[in-house]
């Protein structure tokens, strides 16, 4: 996002457009759709944590290694990562701009990608290779 100086002329001009309308609408809808799906994620997470907290690897393979639990969990972790990146974008847009914004957005994307790949990857490893 390029920084544009908002002058009096820009404000006075009724044809002025602020921000990227399609991207903002997509952001709004994505955040709500992923947020609604995250309710399902929290339900599954509660089941997984209550069942497996403090348990050994054998028990975790027995529960998460079952594709009926593991595959939805892997998908839901990825959906949560999209919601995380979108939400952190909102925060960054509020407090930083310009080059610092682009740098922090890059780090944001990397963090969410690592969480999704590591979390979902680990679960899929348990599903397919035990």
């Amino acid at each position, binding site marked *: 996002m390029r920084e544009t100086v908002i002058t009096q002329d820009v404000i006075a001009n009724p044809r002025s457009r602020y921000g990227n309308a399609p991207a903002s609408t997509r952001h709004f809808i994505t955040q709500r759709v992923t947020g609604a799906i*995250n309710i399902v994620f929290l339900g599954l997470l*509660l089941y997984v944590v209550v069942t497996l907290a403090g348990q050994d*690897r054998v028990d*975790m393979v027995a529960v998460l290694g079952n594709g009926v639990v593991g595959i939805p969990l892997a998908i839901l972790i990825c959906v949560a990562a999209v919601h995380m990146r979108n939400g*952190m974008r909102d925060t960054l847009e509020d407090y930083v701009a310009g080059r610092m914004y682009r740098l922090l957005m890059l780090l944001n994307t990397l963090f969410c990608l*690592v*969480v999704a790949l*590591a*979390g979902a990857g*680990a679960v899929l490893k348990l599903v397919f290779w035990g």
Partner: protein
Amino acid sequence: MSMTARARPISPHLQIYRWTITMTMSIFHRATGIANYAGMALLAIWLVAAASGQGALTAVNFIYGSWFGQLVLFGFTWSLCHHMLGGLRHFVWDTTVMMGPGRREALAWATIIGSVLLTLLIWTVFVWVG
């Protein structure tokens, strides 16, 4: 008549505003969102440890099972519950209902009371008693 010495008036800023519950819950929603963002790394670490081997899983279970680990996980539970209820509140507002002064404040109180009760219910049923 002598003049009482008093500070010169300064420009009004944030401190002149009455602290409201809706504003507090708005701040909580962002704060819990950021906490959940960081907390997802804890989930990924646990799953990666389970995928990599019993040694790594034992170490993670030891840390997460310690008093400090349990304190963090209790906080994470509340943070997830609060952010979920905050999100549901946004779904309500998306339909343009409950936006009037009394209604929106009731909804804000319901968010914080609901998240605390839900967290205590989860930990009571599944950790302290179960």
